[in-house]
């Protein structure tokens, strides 16, 4: 279980995340959605203790992450973040094997079991053929899959993903998220694509300027009247055989509910 209470964070004087609460129960997938700059990634980074929140606490299985040693946390939580460009010619296989690092003491060498797990993980994301390629020279989508393989190799019961479908074509977007579902681990995922969020998440948290604008099951959060004021875009929801699809159009007319919105956005909204 991942639980964040009342989390706020600021870069200097600029509040990026304000009083956000989040609970991901065991085995559930929670999606973080919201416009650019709404604080999704910052929120995620507080969850894996890369940022220390100004207020509030983050707990994994009822233990505060702030007091955990990095290795303890790494054994419980794997992270796929938007980072990982290196000039160093590490191969994809090397990068995946790094996922085993938290399981080994400083003095230990990798065992055959580690090698096997790394290979399985890479095969699992459909990237086995990339094993000997230099990681830094892979395409965005290939890198993304290798990083997910590394997270799998870590074998943690919690998984955090920052836009894992970035750079992936449609087929892999679905394959990766299906894979995440099958893992049955507790997951928090930042997603841009709301239709993917609708299909694969159990719960969604919609952030707007660092605050929670809405939270709950996709069916509740992904409604035109909720999304339109946040994204400043027209939203139409179409029911389909296995759920619903959202359609977007720029023809949004400010619905009057955005009194506290930034002026800049209102201007954009009213001119379209």
């Amino acid at each position, binding site marked *: 279980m991942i639980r964040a209470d009342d989390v706020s964070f600021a870069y200097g004087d600029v509040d990026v995340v304000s009083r956000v609460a989040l609970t991901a129960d*065991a085995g559930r997938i929670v999606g973080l959605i919201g416009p650019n700059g709404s604080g999704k990634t910052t929120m995620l*980074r507080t969850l*894996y*203790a*890369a940022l220390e929140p100004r207020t509030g606490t983050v707990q994994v*299985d009822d233990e505060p992450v702030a007091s955990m*040693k*990095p*290795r303890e*946390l*790494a*054994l*419980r*939580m794997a*992270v796929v*973040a938007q*980072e*990982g*460009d*290196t*000039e*160093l*010619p*590490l*191969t994809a*296989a*090397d*990068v*995946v*094997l*790094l*996922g085993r*690092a*938290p399981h*080994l003491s*400083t*003095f230990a060498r*990798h065992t*055959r079991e580690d*090698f*096997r*797990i*790394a*290979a*399985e993980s*890479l*095969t*699992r994301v459909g990237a*086995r053929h990339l*094993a*000997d390629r*230099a990681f*830094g*020279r892979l395409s965005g989508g290939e890198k993304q899959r290798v990083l997910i393989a590394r997270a799998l190799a870590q*074998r943690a*019961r919690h998984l955090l993903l920052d836009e894992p479908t970035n750079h992936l074509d449609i087929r892999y977007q679905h394959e990766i998220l299906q894979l995440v579902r*099958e*893992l*049955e*681990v507790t997951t928090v995922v930042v997603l841009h694509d709301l239709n993917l969020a609708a299909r694969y998440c159990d719960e969604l948290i919609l952030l707007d300027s660092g605050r929670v604008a809405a939270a709950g099951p996709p069916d509740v959060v992904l409604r035109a009247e909720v999304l339109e004021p946040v994204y400043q875009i027209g939203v139409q929801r179409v029911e389909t055989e296995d759920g619903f699809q959202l359609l977007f159009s720029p023809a949004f007319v400010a619905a009057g509910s955005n009194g506290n919105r930034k002026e800049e956005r209102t201007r954009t909204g009213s001119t379209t």
Partner: protein
Amino acid sequence: MTVETRAEPPFLAETTPDDDLGHADRRRRTVTWIAGLGLGLVVSLLLAVGIGAVAVSPANVARIILHHVTGVPEQVTWSAAEESIVWRVRLPRVLLAAVVGAALAVSGVVLQAMVRNMLADPYLLGVTSGASTGAAGAILFGFGAGLGENALSASAFAGALGASIVVFVVARAGGRITSLRLLMAGVAVGYALYAATSFLIFASDSAEGARSVLFWLLGSLGLARWSVAFVTVVVISAAAIGLFTLWGRQLDALAIGDDTARTLGVPATALRVRLLVVVSLCVGAVVAAAGGIGFVGLVIPHIARRFVGAVHRRVIPVAALIGAIFLVWADVVARVALQPQELPIGIITALVGAPFLLILVRRFHAFSG
């Protein structure tokens, strides 16, 4: 706790072979490399000790060394002059070359990973500039004269450590040490100390002294003797190589990114502090003993990676051996090229290293295209 007892995810069944990605294979290959290079180093040492104004056969070199270390060939079958040349003059010098080469190569590997820049080298942190200032002070103005024959080394070492402490403090000001901040602090401190050294040379108006400072700046192993300074360099370098190899996995993670390192259980900031301390000590000791020898720390890491890939547990021992062999031979060239004159070794390493770097740059571009 339910978390630990949960069954493994179902997909990890025994379906792929044990070493599908060839990790074990690469490990074996690395061991072969290390064994081969180790042998190459021993041969290089024996040959290099024999070469010089008075040539000594490798067999006699081996006998003299064994006689001194183990006492095994009790019968002396060589001349006293040979013994003196081998044991007192050349052996410490050649060993120092090997140790300095290994230490510089390994420090280069670590710094390149730490600042995530393949053009980083051990002198980036202002360490050499600090040592140079210290050395110039000792040569021109008699800093640390109370320390007798160790005055130059001690003064250079103090300068090196002083410089790295300043770089460290500046880079740390305002929070975490980032790659960029470290680079900038190193460059700034380096230039400031370079100016200080130039000023010392300018202010002393001793032509003789200026020449020996210049000679020292370009690097020389001519000061090598069996001494406290020698033991210090050997011990610090050996410890550094051992520690870096142990921290290899953490270096891999750090080379990808701070966040990545942290999520793989590596305390990025703490690791960087540890690395900086060890690198500074190591490079400080090396520069104090042998002056500023360039290009070894920049070029050797790239060669080592070509041989065994980028994983630090493999690169570090291999880079150490290549660096050692390279500097042993560079020193031989420095000694014999213009006999009886001796060339500063930095000239040799730069002459070999610069073209090599150009080739690497070309290849690098061909790949990243």
